[in-house]
């Protein structure tokens, strides 16, 4: 069960011809797939396309009615290989993943797919995780399109354009026998808008038809001599076919093409930002009626030479707005213009930065520099927008602000079961000194930030243990520690990490953080998830898998909140004389998902009169001395500070706020690290039994009597 449910929204997927769809970009993409007669969809979750996977999961019934097969792929490589179904058969297929990390993983399959080419439309929807809020290395998907010669769509970020890109992407793929990548920037994925829907289309040629009538065509298989022919075919047939289609169907768009003797060429995804920038400079209205000619590349690869030349021929200069680096498009543009002998000046990364997100502020500044050079009279210097005005001196009230604002990086959620694993590591560090820690991808990577400050490298999803492979020497008894999540484990870690360590006789420790979901991507199910999933096989054991690959030393901790047990197993793994790879499987359910699962049940039980116990933690302010060790060993959002109620004390005291879910870590830490006696756990019992009520009455009267005696003795 994913973190967010789309059960309600997926009903919008049933909208018919002429209905107006309101919703998120991702949902619109799903609708567009169904309108395009897609036969199968696969993918691997990850921001910003996690919701696409979640929508498809919740829409499984609707998909089945249309004969569409949907799969949660084991990895992006699996997803990309799934497109093999479109090689020989006229089946439309789509896969989706986070880019560029997912595209990296998928590259092998994508290169093979692109070499042989496709018969049915093959669409690769990549969520471009670039710029603000990104959690990955800053690279471009563009390079993958270029190296394998797949076409790259980068539509304007509004719902009609995105939907059109899906529909036209399939057609382009079929006409040029080439897989097509559809790049959606993070904000476009989450943009809310509207478009006029069409009816869903059941594919005329189905998976059943393909399975029952198998086809093979040796010329589509990547083996010599066909592979040599594929390369020629890409250049001689597929490329021109694609360019002809892009031209013929107007995939790229022109606005006010002849309005001036200078113009802007831009990636489709940059359109809204560019129009806003022009608007701020007084060069466009809110409807995009621009004074500056715009050539919008909804297809960023390949460029259509004819279109580029036609747009540029009448211009003294063009500005290319190309987000990201290297400046592939700019180089390409130069090449096209110079080969044709055009003298049009090209601006791009000279007035815009080479690296970093092209925010509205950045684009406004770049366009201003460009216009000032070619039509300075069009700029009303008296009314420049704030973002390009020279900064006014700051009022004193704002001067002081900068020092007071702290970074607020993401962190483990309240009650996260991964936190105690790192608390235990901190405690072991106190005894055994620090260790080299190789991290992985997942929520557990937050360990590198305060308060834990644990972890040295991260080499990619599932590659935590592989990242420590070199530290394998007889010259020291000290061991390295590697981290891997359950998501990364099933993605590839079982082979790339565990198998590798067994085969190479590694003597280090792997901790598999098993929280029963791919939690960081939004709580999707995997093989070891504990929930019964009607459309997937779950509840398989990571420990069994690890033993199956040949690890002898395997320990499972089934309640990570038991910090003392976690600490002891760490100590054991790091100090045992037994040689060979060691694996600790640390299991506790992701608290975010657990709360979503359990909370409604508890509320229902209590309302129905059944006995329900709710736990939460608290700190006694009068025994807390404000040292905050507990926070340094936890970092829980619910464990925070408050002003000291004691007029004599000045340092703030620890406090547990209402969001506490009673995971128990505070108390465990207080014990395991021998901190202080300030923590207490409250149990609130709804619908107590008659015996409990009686017992409570007796206790309360005796305790109240004694408490009156205490007050009397203090007063004396």
């Amino acid at each position, binding site marked *: 069960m994913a973190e967010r449910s789309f059960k309600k929204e997926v009903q919008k997927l049933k909208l018919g011809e002429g209905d107006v769809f309101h919703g998120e970009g991702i949902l619109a993409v799903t609708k567009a797939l169904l309108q395009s007669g897609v036969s199968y969809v696969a993918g691997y979750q990850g921001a*910003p396309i996690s919701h696409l996977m979640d929508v498809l999961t919740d829409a499984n019934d609707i998909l089945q009615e249309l004969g569409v097969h949907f799969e949660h792929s084991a990895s992006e490589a699996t997803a990309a290989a799934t497109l093999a179904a479109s090689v020989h058969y006229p089946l439309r297929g789509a896969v989706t993943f986070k880019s560029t990390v997912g595209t990296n993983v998928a590259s092998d399959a994508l290169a093979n797919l692109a070499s042989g080419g496709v018969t049915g439309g093959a669409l690769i929807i990549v969520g471009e995780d670039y710029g603000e*809020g990104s*959690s990955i290395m800053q690279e471009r998907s563009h390079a993958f399109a270029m190296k394998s010669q797949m076409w790259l769509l980068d539509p304007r970020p*509004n719902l009609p354009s995105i939907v059109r890109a899906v529909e*036209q992407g399939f057609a382009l793929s079929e*006409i040029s026998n080439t897989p097509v990548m559809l790049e959606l920037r*993070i*904000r476009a994925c*989450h943009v*809310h808008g509207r478009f006029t829907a069409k009816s869903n*289309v059941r594919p005329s040629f189905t998976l059943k038809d393909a399975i029952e009538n198998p086809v093979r065509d040796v010329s589509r298989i990547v083996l010599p001599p066909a592979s040599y022919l594929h390369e020629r075919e890409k250049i001689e047939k597929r490329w021109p076919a694609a360019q002809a289609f892009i031209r013929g169907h*107007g995939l*790229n*768009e022109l606005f006010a093409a*002849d*309005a001036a003797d200078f113009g802007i060429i831009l990636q489709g995804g940059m359109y*809204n930002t560019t*129009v*806003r920038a022009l608007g701020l400079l007084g060069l466009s209205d*809110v*409807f995009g*009626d621009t*004074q500056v000619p715009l050539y919008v590349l909804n297809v960023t690869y390949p460029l259509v030479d004819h*279109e580029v030349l036609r747009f540029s021929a009448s211009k003294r200069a063009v500005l290319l707005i190309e987000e990201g680096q290297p400046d592939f498009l700019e180089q390409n543009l130069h090449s096209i213009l110079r080969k044709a002998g055009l003298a049009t000046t090209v601006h791009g990364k000279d007035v815009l930065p080479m690296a970093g997100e092209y925010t*509205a502020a950045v684009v406004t500044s770049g366009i201003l520099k460009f216009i000032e050079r070619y039509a300075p009279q069009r700029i009303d210097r008296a009314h420049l927008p*704030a973002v390009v005005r020279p900064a006014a001196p700051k*009022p004193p*009230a*704002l001067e*002081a*602000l900068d*020092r*007071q604002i*702290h970074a*607020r990086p993401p962190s*483990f959620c309240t009650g996260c079961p991964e936190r105690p694993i790192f608390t235990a590591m901190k405690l072991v560090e106190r005894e055994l000194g620090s260790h080299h820690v190789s991290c992985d991808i997942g929520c557990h990577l937050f360990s590198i*930030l*305060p308060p834990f400050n644990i972890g040295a490298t991260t080499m990619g999803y599932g590659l935590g243990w592989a990242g420590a492979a070199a530290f394998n020497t007889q010259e020291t008894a000290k061991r390295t520690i590697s981290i891997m999540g359950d998501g990364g484990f099933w993605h590839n870690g079982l082979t790339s990490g565990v198998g590798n360590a067994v085969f190479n006789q590694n003597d280090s420790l792997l901790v598999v953080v098993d929280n029963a979901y791919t939690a960081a991507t939004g709580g999707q199910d995997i093989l070891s998830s504990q929930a019964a999933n009607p459309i997937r096989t779950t509840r398989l054991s990571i420990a069994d898998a690890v033993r199956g690959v040949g690890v002898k030393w395997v320990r499972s901790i089934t309640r990570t909140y038991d910090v003392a047990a976690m600490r002891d197993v760490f100590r054991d793994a790091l100090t045992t004389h037994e040689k060979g790879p060691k694996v600790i499987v640390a299991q506790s359910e992701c608290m975010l998902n657990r709360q979503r699962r359990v909370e409604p049940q508890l509320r229902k039980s209590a309302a129905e009169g059944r006995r329900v116990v709710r736990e*939460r933690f608290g700190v006694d302010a*009068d*025994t807390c*001395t404000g*040292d*905050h060790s507990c*926070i*340094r060993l936890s*970092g829980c959002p619910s464990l925070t*500070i408050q002003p000291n109620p004691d*007029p*004599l004390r000045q340092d*703030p005291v620890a406090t547990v706020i209402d969001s506490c879910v009673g995971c128990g870590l505070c108390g465990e830490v*207080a014990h395991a690290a*021998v*901190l202080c006696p300030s923590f*207490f*756990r*409250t149990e*609130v019992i709804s619908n107590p039994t008659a015996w409990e009520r009686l017992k*409570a009455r007796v*206790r309360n009267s005796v305790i109240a009597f004694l408490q009156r005696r205490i007050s009397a003795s203090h007063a004396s």
Partner: protein
Amino acid sequence: MPPEPQYCFTHEVSRPIDNRPQVDNLPHAPITVAILAMGGEGGGVLADWLLDLAERSGYYAQTTSVPGVAQRTGSTIYYLEMFPESAARAAGKEPVLALMPVPGELDIVLASELMEAGRAIQRGLVTPDRTTLIASTHRVYSMTEKTAIGDARVDDATFLEAGRAAAKNFVHADFAAIAREAGSVISAALFGALAATGALPFERAQFEDAIRRGGVGVDASFRAFAAGWSSGAAPAGTAPAVQDILQAAIQRLTGYQDARYAAEYLDLLKPIRALGDPALLNETARYLALWMSYEDAIRVADLKTRRARFDRIHQESRAGTAQLVQINDYVYPRVGELADILPAALGQWLLSTVWARRLVERFTRHGKIVETTSLGGFLRLYAVASLRPWRRRSLRFQREHRKIREWLAQIPEVAAVNPALAREVAECPRLIKGYGDTHARGTRNFDTLIAALPRLRTMDDGAAQLKYLREAALADDTGQKLAEALARFRAWPRKPA
């Protein structure tokens, strides 16, 4: 099935530059709204309500966000634009709405927390020409603020002053508390405050309809909305009155031991009082009272068993009359702490006798959870608390009072040559806090600083030096910063004789 061509390359008609369509009396720019929140704190709900509100009120609305990992407690921005459909119809076109906020171009900024409001101002999103800033004044402390050994909280007043300087209209209140009182979430209270500002061209009923259509926790949201609506004008809370330190100290020590103990406290302070330095007296009085009421097992057991505590916890748990509340205390008495409350000789014997010590250690190897609301649990703590009359004879009492006298004796001596340094000496007991290892580390640091006094007394800037060392001791719990500071201190050029 290739789709129909819709945007042919040659299809677009270029337009003369000076003839842009202008629609009179209709807005030419969208309304822009940014919501700054922390992941999982209701920013998304607020954005959804605003979106629904706008779309149902005849507006185009577009919202975007950058969720991803920021959802996990990091700061995140939701951005909305709204544009009237009537204006679009008159122009015969759809507006092109932006996907991210532009500094200086925001009409409304909502911040779900005070530092996030500061962040919005820092990013230039709040400007005096147009921005209505609605901020909750409660704090969600940053990791830096939370993990400090002492007090690293930033000054709230800076944010409030910045808000007043940066915004056209600054509405601020503790919307978290307002929402809590209404039994709802902060987004509803902020939504109410926004409605009350009139910054959006919609009526209150339209706002409420959006909540109703949202369909989750509607009644509680209405309460919080109404409270938020009427909160905007509420004056900021006044600072708590300055407490009389001596008054508080006497109260504390009487409760800690007895009235005689409080009288002894006043006696101990006499030499300091005689110095006639009010600041020095204040700080010495504060730390002397705290030190004299050191946290031993008797004190902890006493505090844990008080009626007022039971009532407070019951209230905080929000349990109804039909619900039972049980309190489980996490305690970890170790052999040292047990010896501390024994008579001095016996305590000393326990610590120095190997077999006795081992025996006790066997029973104190693990932390204990005492159910204080059960008879057995309560009586155990009650028994320990009843040792109070014998505390004066305990091992710990004698140890602490010896150290207290040593520290106290230094103050008049130092004050005679360097009053500023004396004030810093008075503040040094701040280092001693916590229990067990934490307490031992604090005491060690305190001793180190006091040992540096002879040298500090010879320095003109001794006060600043001692302050610097004290802050270094509070900077981390590994002692690294203090070690560095001490190394620098020792290398400091000596004053020529």
